[in-house]
């Protein structure tokens, strides 16, 4: 095309700054409109789903950590039980059993459960103020062992049998196995619930985003027809929806994290109250570890990214539809 006279005129006018100063313009509006009603609804959906997801993740993390703690507590200790017998000097037998236990490599400490502590252990069944001498109450030595290099239990048993025949070594293996099985099942169920929750969240976010994007189809069309490339349109929508996703997911995740913090603070500050005891007995402690909070941040990032990616894919799909209508006129409106 030939060079146009208007170009020269326009250049002259552009050089005159007074002309532009006469017209005041607002800052350029974004290509994709700011959040409207459907955008806000999407943000709320994302916030709710992020909250539920973060809550589930927190709960599963707590159960897993609790299960690991049980398992660790049980496998860290063994017990020597000495049954009363005629002619047995209990305190001497306890002391001897303790010395035998400590003589093996792999034992870290051995503590005799004294009479007062034994009474407290039996209180729930026998009540307060019973006389221990009137009953054949067995006594315990609790031995802490090195989990990584445990002592030879068979050798301890043999030595105890020789020196203190009334002593029985309990390495808690039966309990440990049961607890390990229970913990694994609990964690598996938790991971299953978390997977379902994630899948539901992702599907909800994808469909909600696509729903909102359907209302923006006319913008995609106009941009496409004024010569915008697919990557440009995709990037513009992605920016807007990433922000919506981030705001919603951060709000949901923050509320869940704050909830865990508040519950943990309440439990710490109201220890030994009836309500706290009941809640702790039912649900355990609500303390979430660093990994739990890190997981919540991960959920926020994942959901925001999912929203942004869905938006870009929806834009690409919309443009493909427009081009498909171009190739197959039967799909287009009759004009």
């Amino acid at each position, binding site marked *: *095309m*030939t060079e*146009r*006279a*208007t170009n020269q005129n*326009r250049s002259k*006018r*552009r050089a005159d700054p007074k*002309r*532009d100063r006469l*017209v*005041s*313009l*607002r800052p*350029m*509006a974004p*290509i994709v*409109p*700011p959040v409207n009603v459907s955008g806000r609804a999407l943000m709320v959906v994302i916030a709710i789903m992020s909250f539920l997801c973060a809550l589930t993740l927190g709960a599963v993390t707590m159960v897993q950590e609790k299960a690991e703690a049980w398992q660790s507590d049980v496998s860290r200790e063994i017990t020597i039980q000495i049954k009363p017998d005629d002619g047995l000097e209990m305190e001497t037998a306890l002391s001897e059993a303790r010395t035998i236990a400590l003589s093996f490599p792999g034992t870290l400490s051995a503590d005799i459960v004294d009479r007062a502590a034994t009474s407290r252990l039996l209180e729930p069944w026998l009540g307060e103020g019973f006389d221990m001498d009137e009953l054949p109450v067995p006594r315990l030595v609790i031995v802490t062992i090195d989990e990584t290099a445990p002592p030879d239990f068979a050798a301890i048993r043999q030595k105890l049998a020789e020196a203190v025949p009334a002593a029985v070594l309990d390495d808690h293996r039966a309990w440990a196995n049961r607890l390990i099985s229970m913990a694994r099942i609990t964690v598996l169920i938790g991971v299953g619930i978390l997977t379902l929750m994630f899948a539901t969240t992702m599907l909800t976010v994808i469909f909600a985003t696509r729903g909102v994007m359907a209302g923006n189809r*006319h*913008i995609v*069309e*106009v*941009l*496409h*027809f*004024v*010569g*915008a*490339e*697919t990557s*440009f349109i995709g990037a513009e929508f992605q920016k807007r929806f990433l922000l919506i996703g981030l705001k919603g997911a951060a709000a949901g995740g923050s509320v869940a994290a704050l909830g865990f913090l508040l519950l943990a603070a309440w439990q710490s500050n109201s220890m030994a109250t009836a309500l706290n005891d009941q809640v702790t007995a039912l649900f355990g402690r609500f303390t979430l570890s660093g990994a739990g909070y890190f997981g919540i941040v991960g959920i926020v990032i994942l959901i925001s990214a999912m929203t942004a990616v869905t938006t870009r894919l929806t834009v690409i799909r919309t443009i*493909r539809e*427009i*081009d498909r*209508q*171009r*190739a197959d*006129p*039967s799909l*287009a409106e*009759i*004009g």
Partner: protein
Amino acid sequence: MIHFENVGLRYGMGPEVLRDLTFDIPKGSFQFLTGPSGAGKTTLMRLLFMSLKPTRGLIRMFGRDIAVIPGEELPLLRRRIGIVFQDFRLLDHMTTYENVALPLRVRGKDEASYRSDVIELLKWVGLGERINVLPPVLSGGEKQRVAIARALIDQPEVLLADEPTGNVDPPMARRLLNLFTELNRLGTAVVIATHDLTLMDRVDARRMILTGGRLDIHD
């Protein structure tokens, strides 16, 4: 610049709505496309804008066969065409100024480089006082002029306008026609789809008359 050869188009399994169209749109030419309602004017405009593919025949745009142009190259080719849609297709969240500047913005141009041009063009189409107004507040005629300004802003090689004077009073229609003829004098090929015989009588230009899907050309 644009070449149609034995072009036909049908929607689905229906009859052909456009039949055996053979014509050229030369550089710097001016033509009216007319015909009764439902004759296929808008369909032909969409073929010219590459938003439809013909079911048969050959269309060459700027020397390229549109049947083999990859989808990602279409936006770049469309940048050489300005289009005024019958339904304007303005973005409601953008002001008049922002709507007109949109084609330049999507090309990645800096606002400072086109600000004066956009304001000047808006004044030229009589919207100098409506620069900061959003489309829902504009009248039909004003929207039409915004759509025309948007089509013209990047000085296209071809301007396609579908009923560009349909919503304006006769003085404004004359003014818009003058705008098109001035643009044409500067080298842009213009295709105006219209019913308005008075408008066509004002310019001595080629008339393309669509009747029953067939095209008669009166030079």
